[in-house]
């Protein structure tokens, strides 16, 4: 079936004119119409625009133009501004916001000839690990609809797993690509901080946010990242470092690759999950890689560090939502203070307000040194740990999450328990490192993710290592029941 083909296979059929982009787009739109009601993976469907995009791609294909993503459908996380299309960020605050311009990620993927099917559901302002904080209701996991898909990019993850599109965009501030990728059994790639432009991506924590991709294979992720990555003068933290040829790096042999097993990631990990990760090491050794144990002693402090740094940045970033220039405004404000407070109080959901207040507290007079400054110092300790590890090994490896998907509603009442879902992913964000989660097996019929993290700008090596694993295994080809 078309929806099980990988991007390169689809591109080949498109280029040989065996199928048209319009047929492909209709195929995915039909699937979405039929199967999405059970998952709630979308906030906005753009079927009409998709068919226009597809017609434009078909015209180009007819004229002999070719490209790895030309005519390929995609889904954008609803955090990326899309000109003329509602961009809600999963919030009541932006329920009526029609973006007046495209994010650079959107511009680049448009220029590559992709077809946008819609905007995916997400945790409100990307704050969540279960996709339960969305104003538009929770997303359900296609492997078991009583389970969460992870978050914050839960809609993009569920949609990719359900084969609603060959790929989807996401953002990862503390694990929001890798964690939902693990919980839904897809490949999720988070690039180095600054590798992909943040322009037009609604800000949560600006020193941590990074755009990336969900796909069904590392090879597909490589094709997409090739288009997304690159310098953008519109993003002040975009890095001006050349983009290597990611697809060309996929086939390099892993002979001599040194992989570091993260000791701290196995402390307290359930035996069945740990054994799946151990199995992946056997695969890597059979491919010629060498595995050694490495330790990141400060890593256990990554979650408390993150829950100071990220809320602090969020409280500043979200001050722009004031009920004046865009977004929700309360009825009949008596004065300006009332307008600010009620517009924000009504427009933001419970978790967003919690994070804004946490951030306001840690930045307030008398607490700044004890919390914010302290967290920034610990952030450096964690980063130094990674640097020391990468002096010995090429990549580090471990589980993406402590457990497979959990039940919807199971953790909503206890924010700290929810925050601990990101215990294995947050370190890479604090240090700005690239990481990838790939499916590596099942526990209780739910997918489990293997995480690889590399030094800054090691995207090609990570994609290479993930691809070689997928050449040797079949986990990434498994589809949830009913979505085959």
């Amino acid at each position, binding site marked *: 079936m078309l929806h099980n083909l990988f991007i390169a296979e689809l591109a080949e059929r498109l280029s040989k004119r065996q199928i048209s982009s319009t047929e492909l787009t209709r195929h995915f739109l039909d699937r979405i119409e039929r199967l999405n009601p059970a998952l709630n993976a979308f906030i906005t469907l753009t079927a009409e625009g998709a068919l226009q995009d597809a017609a434009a791609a078909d015209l180009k294909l007819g004229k002999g133009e070719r490209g790895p993503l030309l005519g390929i459908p995609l889904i954008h996380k609803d955090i990326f501004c899309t000109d003329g299309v509602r961009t809600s960020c999963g919030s009541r605050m932006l329920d009526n916001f029609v973006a*007046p311009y495209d994010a650079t990620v959107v511009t680049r993927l448009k220029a590559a000839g992709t077809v946008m099917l819609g905007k995916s559901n997400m945790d409100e302002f990307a704050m969540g690990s279960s996709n339960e904080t969305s104003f538009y209701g929770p997303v359900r996991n296609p492997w078991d609809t009583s389970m969460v898909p992870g978050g914050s990019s839960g809609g993009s993850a569920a949609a990719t797993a359900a084969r609603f599109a060959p790929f989807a965009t996401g953002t990862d501030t503390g694990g929001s690509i890798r964690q939902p990728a693990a919980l839904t059994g897809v490949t999720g790639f988070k690039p180095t901080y600054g590798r992909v432009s943040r322009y037009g991506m609604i800000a949560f924590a600006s020193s941590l946010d990074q755009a990336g991709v969900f796909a069904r294979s590392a090879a597909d992720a490589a094709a997409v990242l090739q288009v997304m990555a690159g310098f953008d003068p519109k993003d002040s933290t975009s890095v001006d470092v050349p983009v290597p040829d990611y697809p060309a790096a996929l086939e390099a042999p892993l002979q001599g690759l040194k992989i570091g097993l993260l000791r701290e990631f196995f402390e307290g990990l359930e035996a069945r999950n740990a054994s799946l990760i151990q199995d992946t090491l056997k695969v890597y050794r059979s491919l010629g890689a060498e595995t050694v144990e490495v330790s990141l002693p400060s890593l256990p402090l990554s979650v408390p560090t993150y829950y100071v740094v990220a809320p602090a940045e969020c409280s500043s970033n979200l001050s722009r939502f004031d009920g004046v220039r865009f977004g929700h405004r309360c009825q009949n404000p008596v004065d300006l203070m009332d307008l600010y407070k009620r517009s*924000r109080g009504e427009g933001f959901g419970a978790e967003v307000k*919690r994070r804004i207040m946490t951030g306001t*507290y840690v930045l307030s007079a008398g607490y700044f040194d004890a919390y914010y400054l302290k967290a920034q110092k610990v952030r450096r300790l964690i980063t130094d740990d990674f640097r020391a590890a990468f002096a010995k090994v090429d990549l580090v490896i471990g589980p993406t999450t402590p457990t497979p998907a959990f039940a919807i509603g199971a953790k909503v009442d206890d*924010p700290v328990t929810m925050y601990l879902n990101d215990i294995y992913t947050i370190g890479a964000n604090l240090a700005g490192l690239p990481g990838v989660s790939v499916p590596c097996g099942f526990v209780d019929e739910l997918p489990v993710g293997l995480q690889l993290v590399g030094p800054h700008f090691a995207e090609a090596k990570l994609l290479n290592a993930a691809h070689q694993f997928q050449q040797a295994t079949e986990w990434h080809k498994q589809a949830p029941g009913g979505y085959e």
Partner: protein
Amino acid sequence: MILTRQDVEKIAHLARLSITEQEMPVYVTSLSSIVNFVDELSRAQTGDVLPMAHPLDGQHQRVRADVVTESDHHDKYQTNAPAVTAGLYVVPRVIE
């Protein structure tokens, strides 16, 4: 509780958030548990470690040529505004 109701009211005011009577006890409890959790950081030996604000070392603020690169789109941008008159954002009276 580490934080009192008065603490949370003060934080909510600083953050310009209205909090309902129903929400208040929930925030007192959950914000206290978060503060308790992040207090773990106090155990870390950070001595003379420099605070890290940005994940990539050696980056500096780029400057660009002082030329106009943006055109005026205020009409388009203001289509998202809750209240606009004559190209101006309308808010409750600020100056008596």
